């Protein structure tokens, strides 16, 4: 398999391996496959890599610019990409499914009523549609352990709030555009909150600290 990719610098000590420019399930699968290939063949074998992480369509590497430079790592990546093309893409997205119990609506899901009327469905229908799919964790970002979940049914997709709320409670489950996500901590935020989970998503005493790693799957269960 020949792959289209670009190696881009962001300043003198960050490299992006870009596999595309869109939010796309297929590209994201390749990103995670390449991420674990490079974890074994680049990250774990180099002392100059400071941080290494996947996004929707890219892999980012922060490195120590005192020990190496962009051109050296770029060459290494080009060589490793040839190897990756031979080994081929392996769907190694973490097969584990994490079930998240959610209290929908009411005090916990204070935007459910409004969202239902915007999308023209009953609250019950929104909950049914939201609990149906197996969501893929595309990306963790925004704040520690915040999973961006792909696979939301377009019927309940809804734009984020124009003005973010000053405080969203810990565990809140929200919708923004075509994505759904969970707030691991109380924070300001603009997602529309449809429910809340009691499950602790992020534990500072553990590495990895998050229960929902990138590449895994999430299923919401109504309680």
């Amino acid at each position, binding site marked *: 398999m020949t792959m289209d990719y670009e190696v881009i610098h*962001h300043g003198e000590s960050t490299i992006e391996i870009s596999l595309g420019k869109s939010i796309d399930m297929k590209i994201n699968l390749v990103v995670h496959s390449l991420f674990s290939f490079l974890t074994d063949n680049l990250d774990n074998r180099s002392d100059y890599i400071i941080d290494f992480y996947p*996004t929707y369509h890219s892999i980012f590497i*922060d490195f120590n610019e005192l020990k190496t*430079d962009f051109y050296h790592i770029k060459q290494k990546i080009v060589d490793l990409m040839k190897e990756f093309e031979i080994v081929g893409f392996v769907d190694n997205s973490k097969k584990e499914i994490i079930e998240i119990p959610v209290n929908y609506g009411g005090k916990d899901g204070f935007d459910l009523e409004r969202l239902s009327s915007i999308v023209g469905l009953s609250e019950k229908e929104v909950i049914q549609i939201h609990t149906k799919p197996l969501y893929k964790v595309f990306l963790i970002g925004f704040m520690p352990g915040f999973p961006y979940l792909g696979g939301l049914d377009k019927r309940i997709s809804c734009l984020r709030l124009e003005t973010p709320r000053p405080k969203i409670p810990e565990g809140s489950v929200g919708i923004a555009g075509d994505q759904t996500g969970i707030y691991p901590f109380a924070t300001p935020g603009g997602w529309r909150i449809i429910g809340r989970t009691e499950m602790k998503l992020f534990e500072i005493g553990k590495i990895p600290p*998050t229960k929902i790693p990138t590449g895994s799957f999430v299923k919401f269960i109504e309680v």
Partner: protein
Amino acid sequence: MMEILKSGLFSSFQDVGRFGLKQYGVSNSGCQDRYSFTFANLLLKNDINEACIEIVGGNFKCKFFEKVSIAVTGPSEQCLINNEKRLETYSSVNVDVGDVLEIKPSKMGRIHYLSVSGGFDLNKILRSYSYHSPSSISDEYKLKGNQKISFKRPKITTPMIFNQDFYKKYIESKGVIKIIYNQNINKHLKNQIESREYMVNINSNRQAIKLESDPLKEFFKQNEISNGVTLGTVQIPPDGQPIILMQDSQTVGGYKTIGVVPKYQIPSIAQMQPNIPIKFQGVSLSEATRINRNINDEINRSKFFKYQFTDLYVNNKKISVKITENNSIIAIADDDVFEVYKEIN
């Protein structure tokens, strides 16, 4: 042990940062002025990653309950011990039981570092001692008034001083922000960016430094997919006003980016004061790498001098004199009519 009497505008524990956890959405955090941070530990022969207190905006006061050597680095300013001008930045001193240290706001920068010999007694959170301001993962690292802090292995070391020109040379703002442009930024846009004069917005914080100028209208319309960002990434949101991402920024961002500020400029940007005009200036990847390495070599080669206090009386006025081992004199008057005179090397 010490007690915080005044925690100032914003004081927190920081080390070099929290690395390798961006895949879990955990920001790097860490000291904003890496150079001053490093010197705070070097002056006391601490581990170079030992946690320091990062003091933003001065107005900091603490009281010591045991003998220990301390160091303060940051904008050149004298700190008060028991209301006397006794400690210059980029030097260490021994404090006694009951001594009170005061760090005032400076006109030459925003951030000071306070280190103690042997380090503060803290537990690491996710591999690091750094406070992350936007989340609650490390709340215990944010300092509050009346808080008591224990020391790990308090030691008394020989007071040392370092040539302060380093701050002037590499950290104090020269009115220019260097930027390594992204590959796709064309000449016209570079001209647009570099012709403008910017001011630092007072709403800047550990997540981002916000700049203000005539908006860059090329960026008014955008619909970006969130992607990775790094320390120094320059984003242009739809309002056309640049944002420079700092240590506590999110790991991904959804605005257009034009480039990244090189590592050696970050301390200077962190120390920038509001209301001073600044301009962007492009720098190449290889030039930035070269400068990073040169400054790092200079830090590794830096020499510290032992010094001693002596009190002299001139015309009935007491002057504290610091004499370094190479016989340079640093005189500090307790009266403002005397100018601070300093010569090392």
